[in-house]
């Protein structure tokens, strides 16, 4: 997996200051078609500056050229090996002891509750462990007293036992309830943290981490922590408490017998340590294995149509079988580790019991020990080692949770590369009648962290209220330009200014009132159609939602749905075609009513009337907004006031559509090709 990118890193990568323009990096073959764009070396333009003339020197074979559409996949250009491995191996780096810190930070706000829970358990264990003591008392005191006709001690035993029984029941109830509160609060916190953090991480992270893994983190990994909290911690506390209580009791009953029992903890501790070491690896393997099972599962279910149409079922079964088997092995390994631990600990415990009984019995026989004391000691001994299996259960869930916590800590340690400012500045008031805002790319350069340059340094001003079309082939950097403006990425150098304010200084709500991007993707969320539109502005009234839909020409199909605007898109009859989904996406953008609207290939699934409706809306509702339209459909471009032609990260042509059509440039060629396609 990691080798695919290592080629890119290994080979010498030319990094001319001005960016790479190795010919042949474009997808189309120059000359093979009439409309091949020519580098307009002779075409200087108004307000952008390319730092250096395009370099013509071909670099055959030095590196895979243009390989990954760079605007979609940052790391493929040239990422350091280690970073890639981290993603590929599903092992994001986390600071040392991150999982401990994570667990602590989850529990710290609940200190009070944790203490209360522990206190309840303390009392509960005291009540439970009083039993054998009462037995010893009964045998050594109540029996002789009864023989002398005195009933007091017997009543005491009875009352004591009654009290202990009731107390242990009530305390047990209280403890489980209290513990559940702690657990559920921790889980709520953790789930929220993962979710919020994932939402805050930037797009490039999501593109690398894959959705399946993220889902796996938020589900199975949280689940294993839930198991630890639900059963594990309770077990641990119970086990530790009973160890402490019982050891104390044994020591109190008889120092010698007690010390033998305490001494037996040493081999037990060693066993636990060995188990932990071995289980650590097994569980880490298991967590990775289940994540890849989930990735495969989610991918198949989300792409079920092509799976069916191309008869992939068998091949998928086989692939899944392989991944599933890997998980099965690691799962089995984990269970076997447990078996090994249980045998070891039982052996130690039973040997200790035999030894203590032998010694105790010897001493009773020699008269050095009271019979009642031996009886109580033996009863306690049985109890002492009873929780060993439960300790195993705890260790099991702890190791499993530790592996998950490690991964979660790695995820949570990822720093959003597009952080929200802590000191937001407001945008200046929009001037009346001028709803658009001016956009300035001020000396902006964009490269991926490891150096693959996508946009060489450039300057560009988009005046308020104008519609600018950006055209160019795949990989020319159009989408990167749009993503910079939408602040999906931050520029490597320079600033993107909205009415003079750096985008980085805007709060998210302010930014989104300013800039909204409609993409080619037309994902719908569960919920009603109205809710999906209202995503643009959650406080919008039904009238406003319907108005937005009407404007874009989506009202008719929506009202034709079984429940109109209240149709659940995931339920009966909520099937919405790709074109309709794009209309919904537009309605959403209209509702958001931004100062700057970016359309990134947002009309590709629309038919011509739909496209016209969009254009109409831009003339009417969105009139005066600043618009950036990325499209390969030149029909969309026609409405633009200005066209930018991009090629390998540079703006090579800039002008009004009419000017560019008249000129002998790339756009003119494109436009002619397009006219011809219409004419036929």
């Amino acid at each position, binding site marked *: 997996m990691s080798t695919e990118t290592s080629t890119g890193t290994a080979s010498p990568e030319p990094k001319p200051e001005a960016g790479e323009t190795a010919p042949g990096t474009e997808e189309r073959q120059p000359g093979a078609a009439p409309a091949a764009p020519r580098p307009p070396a002779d075409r200087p333009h108004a307000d952008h500056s390319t730092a250096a003339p395009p370099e013509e020197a071909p670099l055959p074979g030095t590196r895979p050229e243009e390989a990954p559409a760079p605007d979609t996949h940052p790391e493929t250009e040239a990422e350091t090996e280690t970073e890639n491995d981290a993603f590929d191996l599903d092992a994001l780096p986390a600071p040392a002891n991150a999982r401990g810190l994570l667990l602590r930070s989850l529990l710290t706000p609940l200190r009070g509750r944790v203490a209360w829970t522990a206190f309840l358990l303390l009392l509960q264990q005291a009540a439970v462990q009083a039993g054998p003591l009462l037995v010893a008392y009964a045998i050594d005191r109540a029996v002789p007293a009864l023989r002398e006709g005195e009933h007091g001690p017997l009543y005491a035993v009875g009352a004591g036992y009654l009290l202990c029984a009731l107390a242990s029941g009530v305390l047990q109830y209280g403890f489980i309830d209290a513990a559940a509160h702690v657990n559920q609060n921790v889980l709520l916190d953790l789930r929220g943290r993962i979710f919020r953090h994932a939402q805050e991480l930037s797009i490039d992270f999501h593109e690398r981490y894959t959705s399946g893994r993220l889902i796996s983190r938020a589900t199975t990994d949280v689940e294993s922590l839930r198991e630890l909290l639900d059963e594990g911690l309770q077990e641990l506390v119970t086990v530790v408490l009973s160890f402490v209580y019982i050891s104390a009791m044994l020591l109190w009953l008889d120092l010698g017998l007690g010390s033998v029992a305490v001494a037996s903890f040493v081999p037990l501790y060693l066993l636990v340590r060995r188990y932990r070491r071995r289980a650590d690896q097994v569980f880490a393997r298991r967590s990775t294995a289940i994540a890849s099972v989930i990735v495969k599962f989610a991918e198949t279910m989300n792409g079920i149509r092509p799976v069916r149409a191309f008869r992939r079922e068998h091949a998928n079964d086989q692939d899944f079988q392989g991944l599933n088997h890997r998980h099965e092995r690691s799962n089995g390994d984990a269970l076997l580790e447990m078996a090994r631990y249980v045998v070891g600990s039982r052996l130690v415990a039973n040997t200790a019991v035999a030894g203590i009984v032998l010694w105790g019995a010897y001493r009773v026989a020699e008269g050095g020990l009271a019979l009642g004391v031996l009886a109580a000691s033996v009863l306690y001994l049985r109890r002492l080692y009873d929780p060993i299996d439960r300790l195993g259960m705890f260790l099991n869930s702890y190791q499993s949770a530790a592996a998950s916590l490690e991964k979660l800590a790695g995820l949570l340690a990822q720093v959003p590369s597009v952080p929200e400012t802590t000191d937001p500045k407001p945008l200046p008031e929009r001037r009346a009648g001028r709803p658009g805002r001016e956009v300035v790319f001020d000396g902006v350069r964009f490269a991926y962290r490891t150096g693959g340059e996508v946009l060489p340094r450039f300057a560009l001003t988009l005046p308020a209220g104008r519609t600018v079309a950006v055209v160019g082939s795949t990989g020319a950097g159009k989408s990167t330009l749009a993503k910079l403006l939408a602040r999906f990425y931050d520029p490597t150098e320079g600033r993107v200014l909205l009415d003079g304010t750096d985008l980085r200084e805007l709060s998210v709500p302010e930014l989104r009132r300013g800039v909204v991007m409609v993409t080619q993707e037309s*994902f719908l969320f569960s919920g009603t159609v109205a809710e999906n539109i209202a995503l643009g502005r959650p406080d919008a009234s039904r009238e406003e939602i319907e108005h937005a839909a009407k404007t874009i020409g989506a009202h008719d199909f929506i009202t034709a749905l079984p429940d109109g605007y209240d149709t659940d898109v995931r339920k009966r009859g909520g099937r919405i075609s790709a074109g309709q989904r794009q209309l919904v996406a537009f309605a959403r953008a209209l509702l958001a009513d931004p100062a700057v609207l970016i359309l990134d290939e947002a009309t590709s699934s629309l038919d011509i009337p*739909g496209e016209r409706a969009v254009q109409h809306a831009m003339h009417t509702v969105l009139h005066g907004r600043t618009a950036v339209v990325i499209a390969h459909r030149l029909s969309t471009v026609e409405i633009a006031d200005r066209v930018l032609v991009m090629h390998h990260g540079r703006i090579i042509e800039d002008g009004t559509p009419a000017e560019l059509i008249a000129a002998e440039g790339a756009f003119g060629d494109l436009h002619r090709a397009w006219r011809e396609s219409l004419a036929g």
Partner: protein
Amino acid sequence: MSETSAGTKELQARPTGGDRSAVRTLLRLWPWVRPVRVRLFSAACVAIVASCVGLVIPLVLKWIVDGPVAEGDSGGVWLGALYLLLLGIGEAALFGFRRWLVARPLASVEAAMRADLFGRLQRLPMAFHDRWPSGQLLSRATTDLMLLRMFLAFPLTFLLVNGVTILVGMVILLLQEWTLGLVLLVPAVPVMAVCWLFETRYAAVARTAQDQVGDLTTVVEESVLGIRIIKGFGRHRRQAEVFRDLALRLRGTELAKARLLAAIWGVIVTLPELAIGAALVLGTVQVSEGDLSAGALVAFLSTALALRWPIDSIGFLLAMSQEAATATQRYFEVMDTAPEQETVPERESVGGPPVRAEDRDRPGDRGGTDRSRGGLCFENVVFRYPDAPEDSRPVLDGVDLHIRPGETMALVGGTGSGKTTLTALVPRLHEPTAGRITVDGRDITALPRAELRTLVSVAFEEPTLFSASVGENVLMGARPGAAPPENTTEKAAADTAEEAAGAEEAAGAEDGHDDEEALRRALAVAQAEFVHRLPQGAGTQVGEQGLSLSGGQRQRLALARAVVGRPRYLVLDDPLSALDVHTEALVEAALRRVLAETTALVVAHRPSTVLLADRVALLSEGRITAVGTHQELLRESAEYAWLMSGTTPPAGAEPAGKAAAGSSSAAAPHPHSTQGGGPR
């Protein structure tokens, strides 16, 4: 499996759970448990023996206390300690043996169930997937199956083991001192009553909790998949609120669950403890009166205390079983849904003439059945989504269309007019509600799906790539995966596919070579030469876990996938929407050559795509209202002209019937008029 009713009819809403008893539900796991039954039962037996050994230990203690200790026989003490040690070692060995027996089988049961779920999901009707969020499916494949594995590991064995242990223990107690034993029996009835009460109430809460986990998973998944939209509108906080609400609701349910658990645990702890207290008081009296030896009382209480854990654990074992039962229910909600049926059983699949390579070369010239109806033919096809209400208007309402052998037919219609739905009927992703579709004069329902899907190749509107190399992604259109065929039907399909892939190659040529050649050709058609510039060429990993490609690149690969197998029938759903004008022109040129050799149905939004076709069919109001050449329809159908140019149709447009009459259509267009087009 005997059911042969129309494919998706048997789909129903989620079965109402809860009316089955937990035991009956859990019994349904038998088919998966069966293969490991020997080990599982042996393990249970071993566990019972181990538990009984545990019960014998107190008897040995009694023997030591009453015998050697009382008599001061040091040799006897040694013997007793030796017995104790041997029993202890035996117990430890049995414990380990039990775990070793079940470790691998348990992991394999979980894996097998997961693989079966995955396999079933891949074969369920499309309508099922339309309805079920994949998060719900995923939570079944992960959390629910883990619960089931844990159920098999603990509750299943230990309910039996503890039950037997309790019984044996009671027998031993009754044999030792029947009076005291009876006292201990008293709480049995109330405990059982409480358990029963608990079971019914816990089941409902557990089910709710698991469904809520599924909902939560769905939100996580959507938020990850729709991250660009969420970011684009700055809605991540709101999304986090939605998530938090759901997580809070889940927390509430979990707390209710915990309270129930706490209650039963409280009762189960208190009642037996009270009984033991009573026995202690009575026993003390008996000892004092000399009816009972001290050793006997110690042994009795020791045995009684040894039974505490088995009794205590019943509470959580029942809880786990209950959760396992609901997990099983949820699992079977998927497994009980019938997979797609071959509506007409194997009749023609084996005996029917497979498509020969020579037929392929002369499309439509099959000297066989019904030549006039060769090609792809829709006859009065009506389609309503199976989950739509019976009285709703069908999406397709009597489609008649004949695509002659070798012909390319463009399908044009307004947004949401059912074009994509119509294309989904051809490879039988959905089944028509009425009417029939024939290929080469054969009803598609008479063809095994695998064979049909080999004949018909599809490029979907949304180009999905899987986590595999580019080459594998494209070549999956040529072969039904690398899996060995399962039965004759699959075999036949595989054979035909091989033939398809190697149509030109001499029979018996190497697969690898064929593939390479086919891949090269397909990539050329789709103008996907960018593949060769990827880091590892066609071997580059793409999809979820690989390089992410731009929309245009993915679309071209999807197109290559559709044509790689040189299918007899090609269904393309708006195959060029994401391409820039220039690439589009190149693809069109190459595609034209492919289309010349096949019979094709191409959904088109734009004139440029329409021009690929020999004729155009206009889909409106669920019917084909006009068929003709592009020019004819432009002249004669106002709706068509509107769809193609976006200009408002002139008032009083001619009825579409006339347009169709003017064409040379062999199909019988419905004499249904389009009211001058216009958006609906």
